[in-house]
Structure formats: C-alpha cells, structure tokens
C-alpha cells in the first residue's frame, strides 16, 4: 500500500486530475447523491429549522461536554457497559488489543467506523496478530485491495465495478462478473462464515445519548447489527464529540443524517444499545465495552470557530457538494477525512504543519456550508486555519512546503504593491512604466498562454497566466482620463 499523505496534497491532486475513471465515479457520486438529497430534504416541513435546532443541540452539548460526557459514561456503566477512556489513538488501539487478549479472542469482525480508520486500528491489530475482518461491503472491498477509504459514507467510491470484479476474482476466486448482485452475494456468503466464527465485534458510534447511556449505530447493510449481536464481546469506539443530551433529540438527527448523507428518509437499520444484556439467556454479547476517545478533539473546544468541527455528524454531504472533491476524490487529501470537512479536521488532528495545504484546497464557494445539516461554517474554519498557516510561516514553525513557500513570494509582492499604492506619484509612474514593459507579452489585447513569454521570463507571475488570460494595462489610466476632462463630460 502506498497511499499519499496530506503533506503532498498538491501533487496528489494533480495526479488525481489525470485519472478519468476516478473523475467519472466522482461525477456519478455528485449527481446521484446530490439529486437524492435535494428530493429528500423536501420531505420534512422545516429543513432550515431542523438544521438550526441540530446545531443548537450540538452547541449546547459541546459547551458543557464535560458534564454530558460523564452523564453518558455513568448511565452506560449503570446499564452494564464497561467504560474506557483513551487520550489518543495509540491508547485506544492498546485498549482494544488488551480487551481482546483478556477475552482470548482472535477472530474479530468489524463494522464501518471512521474513528477506527482515524487511528489506524486495523494496522495496530494486524501487528498484534488480531487482524479484523471488515464487514461493510465498501470497507471489505478496500481491505481486500489494501487501500484506505476515499469517502466517509461510500468508502470504495473510487473503484469501478470492473476493478472490484477483478479484485474478487483474485482474492476470493469467483468468476469475474459485471453483475453487482452477484458480487454482493459473494460478499454475503463469505462474510457470513466470518460472522459465525467471530469471537469479538468492533463498531463505531453515531450518537451517544447522555441521559440514558444509549449509543446508536446507523447502517443500511445489517453488518453492524450482526457485528454487535453475534460475537460474545462488543467493543464500540466513540469520539467524545458524539454525545447528544436526550433520547428525543434523536428525532432531529435521524431526520438530518440519512437525508444529507444518502438522500434516504431513514437508513435501513438503527440499533440503540444501552449497556449489556440483562440475563445470560438474552440475545447479544456478554461484554459491551465503550472506548471514549479524545485524540485531539478536546483541543478543538478552545475556540468557537474550531469547536464547530466537533458538531460534524459525518454525513458526507459536504464532500458530495464540493467542486474540489468532485474533481480529485478522497485519497488526494491524504487523510481518512477528505473533502471540506477533512480539510478542516485533518490539520487539527495531525498538526497544521503536516497538512498546511489542506485549508487551501477550497475555492471558498460555500457549497459545503449550504448543505451541512448542522450548519458548520466550513469556509470560516478554512480561513481560520489559513491564518494559522500564515502565522506559522511567518514564525517559521509551519513547514515550508508548497504552496506555503509561494506565500513568501506573494507576501513580498503585496508589500511592494502596498508601498507603491500609498505613494501617488510612485503609483502613477509605476503604472506608466508597466504599460511600456508589458508590450512584449501582450498578444491580441491579452496577456495569456499564447504569448508564453511571461511563463519563461517570470515564473511566479507565469503561474497566474498558466490557466487564464490576464488583461493588459489600459492605454490610458483613469487618472489621466480624469485630468483630461472626463470629470466635465458628466
């Protein structure tokens, strides 16, 4: 496996742009999920009101996260769940390994969880000889291919049917086929066997209800229900931001999440799990463990702008709506969280120095803010992080990688510009001088690719005209025209 990292975003994106199959898949994604979402949000009375409400609930929870988190942990423990705390990913991985060892469980199944992807749990478990089997179809596909997810909701969106058929032919020995139902049937057959053998199941969590200690898992396939019902042990990994105060608040979030993510009114299954079974004869695991993980989340509480990141319910709507994601896909971001929300979460999780390009991976068009079901102002967050990158560059603490290095040149140019701008004589003579100097690069009234001299002569300026023409300076400036009587013509 050789997945790109966030540090090389610029190159990753360029490579992705040259992949026609990927771009076809992304067009399909944007169109299909975009249209389905548009229809789905008309099936509730007051979509805007719901979004407001959801955000208010999240804001309230985050402002008192210590209280709600303790309520959740206490109530879940009272119902028989075992609560564990992890400051970071390494601690969370170590906890999972210890729990599996204590139970002497080696056959492990897993349902889809972004939190486990975030901490690279599978790699840690493999290293401990406890390789888990991913059971969500998309996650299983990318596990077979030894890749990482490229979308929060549909992790294998970058792969074509043909590629998946070839992968299945190679790894599980079925005849290559174009029939999605046959591919899906093969997955069902093989994964059923894994479920029968499984001694432990690992899942993520979509919501944790403070008032009852209940946690929720949303899904369409049924693999999360199997993962949490069949094995004798269930371990749920939960980011500390997943808390909501009350059970009835679910009404709001269950209306928003499926509609935003896949355009469904409701996903096929929701499991609400509160503690462990009451008696040995009951169905379900004998042990339920909940790992409450910080991993950089508490630091996001430190400013109202960054705190918004913790309101995210991982629906993926901002990815589907983003004109940048639609062109380059998820892997270019070099993070398990791609797209607009990934561009703001990743630098906060792994450090701004390692992901300094991500806050710039946006045209600030605001499409992400428009579709976000919890009204996260992602452009505001991007600007906040850009400011951090700029300050880091000035202090020399951020890594000097492209395009951050360019920012230094940019900085110089703007200083020069400001100097000239604030001195009228210099400004006027400067404009006249440039009018003369521009002559060699103007072709047909434009400075553009056609002239191409620009690119050869002055590389930083050449970048401007690489993809679009620039307008030349006018033969006479506004000030000259004004002096010559423009004012009197009025």
């Amino acid at each position: 496996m050789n997945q790109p990292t966030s540090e090389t975003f610029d190159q990753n994106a360029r490579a992705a742009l040259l992949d026609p199959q990927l771009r076809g898949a992304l067009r399909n994604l944007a169109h299909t999920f975009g249209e389905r979402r548009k229809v789905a949000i008309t099936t509730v009375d007051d979509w805007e009101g719901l979004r407001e409400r959801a955000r208010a609930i999240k804001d309230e929870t985050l402002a008192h996260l210590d209280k709600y988190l303790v309520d959740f942990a206490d109530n879940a423990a009272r119902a028989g769940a075992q609560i564990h705390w992890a400051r970071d990913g390494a601690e969370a991985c170590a906890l999972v390994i210890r729990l599996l060892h204590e139970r002497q469980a080696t056959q492990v199944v897993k349902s889809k969880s972004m939190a486990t992807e975030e901490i690279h749990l599978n790699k840690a478990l493999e290293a401990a000889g406890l390789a888990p089997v991913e059971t969500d179809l998309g996650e299983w596909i990318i596990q077979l291919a030894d890749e990482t997810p490229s979308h929060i909701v549909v992790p294998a969106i970058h792969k074509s049917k043909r590629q998946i058929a070839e992968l299945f032919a190679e790894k599980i020995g079925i005849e290559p086929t174009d029939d999605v139902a046959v591919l899906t049937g093969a997955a069902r057959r093989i994964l059923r066997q894994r479920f029968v053998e499984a001694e432990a199941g690992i899942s993520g969590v979509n919501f944790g209800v403070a008032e009852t200690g209940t946690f929720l898992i949303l899904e369409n396939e049924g693999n999360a229900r199997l993962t949490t019902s069949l094995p004798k042990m269930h371990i749920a990994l939960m980011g500390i931001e997943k808390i909501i105060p009350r059970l009835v608040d679910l009404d709001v979030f269950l209306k928003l999440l499926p509609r935003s993510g896949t355009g469904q009114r409701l996903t096929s299954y929701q499991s609400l799990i509160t503690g462990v079974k009451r008696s040995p004869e009951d169905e379900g695991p004998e042990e339920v463990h909940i790992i409450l993980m910080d991993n950089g989340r508490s630091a996001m509480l430190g400013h109202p702008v960054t705190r918004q990141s913790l309101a995210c319910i991982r629906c993926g709507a901002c990815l589907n709506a983003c004109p940048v994601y639609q062109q380059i896909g998820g892997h270019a971001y070099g993070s398990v969280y791609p797209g607009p929300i990934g561009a703001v979460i990743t630098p906060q999780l792994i450090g701004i120095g390692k992901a300094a390009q991500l806050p710039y991976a946006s045209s600030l068009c605001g499409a992400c803010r428009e579709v976000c079901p919890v009204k996260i102002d992602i452009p505001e967050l991007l600007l906040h992080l850009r400011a951090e990158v700029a300050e880091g560059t000035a202090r020399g603490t951020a890594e000097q990688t492209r395009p951050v290095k360019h920012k230094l040149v940019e900085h110089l140019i703007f200083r020069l510009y400001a100097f000239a701008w604030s001195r009228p004589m210099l400004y006027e003579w400067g404009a006249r001088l440039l009018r003369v100097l521009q002559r060699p690069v103007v072709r047909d009234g434009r400075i553009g690719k056609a002239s191409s001299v620009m690119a050869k002569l002055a590389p930083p300026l050449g970048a401007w005209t690489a993809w679009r023409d620039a307008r030349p300076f006018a033969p006479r400036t506004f000030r000259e025209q004004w002096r010559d009587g423009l004012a009197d013509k009025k």
Partner: protein
Amino acid sequence: MNDREEKLSAHGQNDEVRRDILAAIRRHLTASAPFDAVRAEHHAQESGAHAPLAPVAVTHAPVAAPIARFHEALAAVGGHCVVVSDDRAAAETVQQLIEQKQAQRIAVSDAPLVQKVCAQIKSDALVFAQTEPPALFDCDIGITSAQWAVAETGTLVLESDCERHRLSSLVPPVHVAIIEAAQVRQTLGEVLHAINEQGPGGLSRTVTFITGPSRTSDIELTLAIGVHGPGELYVIIIAGEGHD
C-alpha cells in the same frame, strides 16, 4: 503481577485518563470563553436576541390513515405490507409465504402475537423458537412482531425487553413481522417520546429500527438488496374487523 493486580492497575490508569480528558475539556472551554463572548455579542448584533433552546415539538401531522401511509412508505423502500382482518388471516398469509418461498426452516421470536399466529399455521416446515447460530443460519424465514411501527417512514421498532428479536429479524433471508394496527404511530418522534416515557431502566437494552430490506450502494452506487440482512421484508398488519 497476577491477573487481578493487572486489572486493578488498568482500572487506576483508566481513572487517570478519564481525569485527564475531562480536565483538557474544561481547560479548553475556559480558554475559549473570551472568544465565545465576542462571538455571542456579534451574533446578538446580527440576529437580535438569541433564541433559547426550545424542546423538540412533536408534530401531530394531518392524520392521513396511518396504515395506508405505512403501506406506502414501506413500499417506497422495497418492503411489502399486507393488511388482514384477524390473526387467522395473518396465519394464512404467513402460510402462503412459507409455501411460496418453499421454506424448510423457520425462526420465530418469543412475542405472544407470533406464537398465537404460528399456532394456526399448517406446515411441515421446522419451527425454531430459541434459535442460536449456527442453526439459525440455515433458517429460510424469520418471524417476529414489533412493538411500534412508524407510518411516516415505514419503520418497525423492536424492543429487546418485549421480544427476542435481534437475530430472527436479521439472519434469515426473509423477515416477516406481524403487528396490530394499534401499534402504528404517525412519526418517529412519537415513538421516541413513548420509549422515553418508559423512564430510565425501562429502556430496552437493544431497540432496533428496521426500514425496509438490507441494502447497499457500495459498488458504483448501484443498489443491491439483501447484502447482510434480509433481502425481503413483509409486514402483516392485523387491522380488525372493517379495516380499509
């Protein structure tokens, strides 16, 4: 260190980590306070008074016959709804399904309604009442009831304290649910409130919401049915005499 000591020390460490995380949360929230104040002032200027957090309103939408609404919503997600007049008719419907699917083995939940209906079925199929894997994996049909149904979304709500439903509604390729008309509510919000009113401790260990058959779009966003859970879902509603 023996096992017991190891567990105790793990426990001590867990407490320490818990304290650390809660302290970090409080520290960062405190550090944020001055910025929060500026933002609050900004918002107040922009949008007038900040609306207080109101409780969720339960919408009692225009009551279009809930059963018809449920029928339509379930059909929209690929499920089937059959409305019958009494449990004898329900038994006949189940029997037809068993014959149609040529089912040999049937897993049933322990719900009284399921017992009552199944007692009236004449079939050679083997019935498993307390199924466990691996026998469960050979069953062709799973029959359960449900404690609630939601008309708006075509959803079944099953509570583990009322019924052993987790595996029988999930593992066999066909799921048949038998409910009474009185269990149908208009919205999910109503059901959540009803569950909530059972109070702490009254909440079942597992509550499962089921809306249609198992589905996936993970391959080129092409819909495939029955990837892990049942590929077919039938809901039989016993509506009593004079149902529509």
